[in-house]
């Protein structure tokens, strides 16, 4: 067996086994270097996997040679590869930039533990994505959640503690719901392997427990994914976490839950439950629309930079769900694409926040006046990523919005109503992004809050790179587009 065949396993194993080793790297800076190297290596593995599945094939891996459905099975297809790129890319980019910001926020002696938890989150998230087994997904979900509580609470901001407690409560409820659902299915089918599950549900005579399971799983994952109105843990958790943790988690954590949601509903239930797509669409679409409109409206009136962006994240999750709820190839590929593009835009924006936070202690908008004169590069990156979030043509964000609109138009005459909602919410995004731009560029500086210089070069370089990528993928989106298209085809036509 060549190396490529082992990559799905290595994707999880490399960060997981390095995590305890990082704790040993006590000398200053070494822990950061080690964790960054591991994250970059993970990203490289994800790229290799993406190239391998670009033509639409699926890589299967049986742990220890025990074949599915008995052994632990891993599988990587186009959809997982896309999400893996997002997770490892976010982790690597955030870590590459992180050192100055982390040094500022976390005491040196606790840093090795912090980086170790970071790698555990990473391995948990990638584990969720590559697992082909419902129970292993749960295990990895717990690993990533527990470790991310540490990350969020690890900063100097004591308000993070109640925020994390709320996150922990809601996250545990979500995970428990998921586990109840999986348990019910296991009871009825006797299997935990997703593909096997799909095959056996057809033989189940009493379908009611499966329906209950579908409800539990969908709601549990919706909680994890911060789907409106189950999103209340997000704003505080994002706002009070250390800035680099926000970059990492905002770019990928909720998206992984959406990934599992899509996997379950499309691979297991779609083909086996009667009229599942109607139930699913009728449940998800109103929530998506409400989330888009209400969260955007909240963001329009929010005065704190991080909290504003967190609200916008909830609205963006609404876009992803909206595409999913169309139950069509076009809608699914739009959603997959938006997972990728939103990670680029929001990751970039939170990187800018980290740059600003390096110089400003208070991140309320009225304190950020005139930042552009002292920090021109940071502010320029903000404008680019902000435009991408709005969905201005020429940026990555436009691509997924365009796809989403096209998918909405397939829904017949009331598709135009959905288009109207998407356009109105884009205008709301213009408002909340532009409030920040005005503050950065045209507001007079607040008393005693004038930073003397730009953010550290290391932070700035990564931020700039992400900003450039927002433009690059707006003009040359072919690679993620191909992954998104074959992901949608795989999910809906079940050609695996």
């Amino acid at each position, binding site marked *: 067996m060549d190396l490529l065949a082992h990559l799905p396993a290595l994707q999880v194993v490399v960060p997981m086994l390095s995590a305890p080793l990082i704790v040993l790297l006590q000398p200053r800076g070494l822990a950061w270097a080690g964790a960054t190297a591991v994250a970059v290596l993970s990203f490289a593995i994800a790229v290799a996997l993406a190239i391998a599945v670009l033509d639409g094939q699926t890589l299967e891996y049986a742990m220890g040679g025990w074949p599915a459905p008995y052994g632990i099975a891993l599988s990587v297809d186009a959809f997982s590869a896309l999400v893996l790129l997002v997770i490892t890319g976010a982790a690597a980019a955030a870590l590459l930039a992180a050192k100055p910001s982390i040094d500022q926020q976390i005491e040196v002696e606790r840093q090795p533990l912090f980086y170790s938890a970071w790698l555990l989150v990473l391995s948990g998230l990638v584990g969720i994505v590559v697992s082909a087994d419902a129970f292993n997904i749960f295990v990895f979900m717990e690993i990533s959640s527990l470790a991310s509580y540490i990350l969020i609470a690890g900063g100097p901001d004591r308000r993070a503690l109640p925020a994390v407690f709320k996150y922990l409560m809601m996250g545990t409820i979500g995970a428990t719901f998921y586990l109840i659902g999986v348990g019910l299915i296991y009871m009825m089918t006797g299997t935990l392997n997703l593909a096997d599950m799909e095959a056996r549900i057809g033989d189940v005579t009493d379908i009611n427990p499966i329906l209950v399971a579908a409800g539990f799983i969908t709601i549990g994952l919706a909680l994890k994914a911060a789907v409106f109105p189950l999103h209340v843990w997000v704003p505080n958790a994002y706002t009070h976490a250390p800035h680099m943790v926000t970059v990492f988690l905002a770019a990928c954590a909720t998206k992984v839950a959406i990934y599992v949601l899509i996997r379950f509903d499309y691979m297991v239930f779609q083909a086996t439950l009667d009229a599942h797509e109607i139930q699913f669409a009728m449940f998800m679409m109103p929530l998506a629309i409400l989330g888009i409109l209400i969260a955007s409206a909240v963001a329009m009136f929010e005065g704190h930079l991080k909290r504003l962006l967190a609200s916008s994240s909830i609205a963006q999750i609404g876009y992803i769900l909206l595409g999913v709820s169309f139950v069509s190839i076009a809608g699914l590929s739009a959603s997959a694409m938006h997972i990728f593009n939103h990670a680029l835009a929001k990751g970039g924006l939170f990187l800018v926040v980290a740059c600003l936070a390096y110089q400003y202690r208070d991140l309320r908008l009225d304190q950020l006046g005139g930042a552009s004169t002292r920090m021109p590069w940071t502010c320029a990156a903000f404008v680019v990523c902000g435009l991408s979030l709005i969905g201005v*043509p020429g940026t990555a964000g436009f691509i997924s919005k365009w796809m989403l609109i096209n998918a909405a138009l397939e829904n017949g005459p009331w598709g135009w109503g959905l288009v109207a909602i998407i356009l109105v919410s884009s205008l709301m995004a213009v408002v909340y992004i532009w409030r920040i731009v005005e503050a950065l560029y045209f507001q007079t500086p607040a008393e005693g809050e004038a930073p003397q210089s730009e953010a550290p070069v290391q932070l700035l370089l990564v931020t700039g790179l992400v900003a450039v990528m927002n433009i690059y993928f707006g003009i040359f989106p072919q690679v993620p587009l191909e992954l998104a298209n074959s992901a949608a085809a795989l999910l809906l036509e079940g050609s695996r």
Partner: protein
Amino acid sequence: MTPETAILVAIGIPLVGALAIALAGRISPNLREAATAITSLSLIWVVWGLLPILMDGGRPSVEVSQVMPGLTIAFTVEPLGMLFAALASGLWLINSIYSVGYMRGNKEQNQTRFFACFALALSATIGVAFAGNLFTLFLFYELLTLSTYPLVAHKGDAATVRSARIYLGVLLSTSIGLFLPAIIWTYTVAGTGDFTTGGILAGKLNDPEIGLLLGLFVFGVGKAAVMPVHKWLPAAMVAPTPVSALLHAVAVVKAGVFTITKIIVYIFGIDFLFEASSSQWLLYAAAFTIITASLVALRQTNIKRLLAYSTIAQLSYVVMAAAILKPLAEVGAAIHMVAHAFGKITLFFAAGAIYVASKKTEIHQLRGIGRRMPWTMAAFTIGALSMIGVPPTGGFVSKWYILAGAFEANNLVAVFTIIASTVLNAAYFLPILYMVWFEREKEGGKEHGEAPFLAVLALCLTALLTLAFFLFNGPVIELESQVVQGLG
């Protein structure tokens, strides 16, 4: 350099220029101004280098990226776009000369940001001009809005930021709320958005829908300022005068009417639209805008606001000419873009020169100013006469063609509108000219002479161009006639 690379280079030059200006601005203002000059000169060299190819009937085109199937970023140079690009790049040079005089004479802040954003706006303008399909056009259209926002908000005080917000709000919300749905609709119906001779929608849409789609386009392209989406233009007058002169008399507003003309000619196709009864309203909407904006202009007391309303009226001339849907009128629409550009930039230059020299902004303050600033006011007079359409100015030529087109179509509404608005133009410009030259200045005013030399030089140049266009318009007409060849 092949014409294909020339297209990309033309869009790239101002982009690189913007970066060079931003960097040079940290070293010295003179170096920065040199960067602007080199950028605009090389842009002229590349853009005007494409002219002979176009004259010979060439249509160079290049595809950058296929973003999605059917959705490409591509550029094609055709006569309308060529004219627009040549106009914008040529006037940018003159405007840069003027800007240096104006910005230094006024001791403005943040000059580096100003010149860098100006270059960025020019890149977007060239992109709009050369866009080969609706999607590419939309991309650069939005970039133009965004890059001009810092120029409008330049002063940075509360009132300016509020006006700039109106500017951005109207332009972005119309483009996202109306223009984008229209583009999506077009792609859905026609399967493409390429600008094609004869249009792409013929036979694919029926009557009430044609009028609706046209409406989405016309009001979605807020830059054309067809009422009621004209409010942003007076709001944009808070910008420094060079911005009002080049962007809000030439690049931005012409991008609007250019887009509408291009959509009428290359997306709908004029014959197809002429047959459709539901497209008739556009003529009336444009006529209404011409008359109403002229009436509003009559009541203005601020020079720049008067010029803004005059611009709104003149823009609708182009829209109306395009909406007559006859070959001669389409040529008239293209020529009017040029004629109005020369005249209006002169008027704005003069208004700015008056402000730099005397800090005067109101019309009633202009009594007798002709004696203090003879060169400036002579140029102002030429510009005003061109707006009215008096020979020997450029404004006469375009009105002639539009009238000819209106008669060809037997369109009495258009004929009447042109006559009425000529009277109104005269009614608001002639009293000013009388005041400037023949009334006495109020006692105790500030002593002043002409504006800085560079500013006066620039406005004399554009005044000369206004006169010259009356005599030497042959090549332009020849080029634009290609657009409608074989039609009608």
